């Protein structure tokens, strides 16, 4: 049952590298923000999977804080791109 979570975490990391390709290639700045937002969402999922994998359940609290802080950073970058900041 634990190996299943290991495989899922590794596959999610591989998927996040796919979003990293868009972050590097992205022709405009909003494309890069979309890629960063996707990577943040996948990172929260990986943290929750790793908390079960390593039996370190404090990682779930880290994931909650990471989700909220990445939301704030996304909002600020969006304000900057929109020219309101």
């Amino acid at each position, binding site marked *: 049952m634990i190996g299943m979570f290991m495989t899922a975490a590794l596959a999610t990391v591989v*998927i996040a590298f796919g979003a990293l390709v868009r972050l590097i290639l992205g022709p405009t700045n909003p494309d890069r923000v979309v890629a960063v937002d996707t990577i943040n*969402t996948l990172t929260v999922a990986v943290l929750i999977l790793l908390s079960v994998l390593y039996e370190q359940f404090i990682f779930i609290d880290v994931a909650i804080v990471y989700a909220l802080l990445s939301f704030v950073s996304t909002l600020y970058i969006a304000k900057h791109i929109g020219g309101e900041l």
Partner: protein
Amino acid sequence: MLADSIAFVLLVIGLIFNALGVIGLLRFPDVYTRLHASTKATTFGSIFLCLGVVVYAIAHYFWTSDSQYLMVIVHTIIAVFALAVTNAAGSHAIARAAHKSGQMPEPSVVDRLSEAGL
């Protein structure tokens, strides 16, 4: 082991939707379609990955009746709630910022947001 099978199916659904979201992010032509693909599919997939963890924790709570698995269930549900709310609001902010920075989808014929003067 029923819980194993349910958690396996939930994790596979989550991985498939995450992969579809990132494939859409890589393949679609402009920022709005990329946002449409990646945000919704990735949120849905991450919710299903977290549901797999919840099923695992429920099964272990019934086997061992250890109260830390109850904490895992509650905190994972809080994380899913935070993820769903913040992804929706963040993608709205990104789309609005992309519109304000002057990007338009290629075959667009009407722009209601500029007509409304917002």
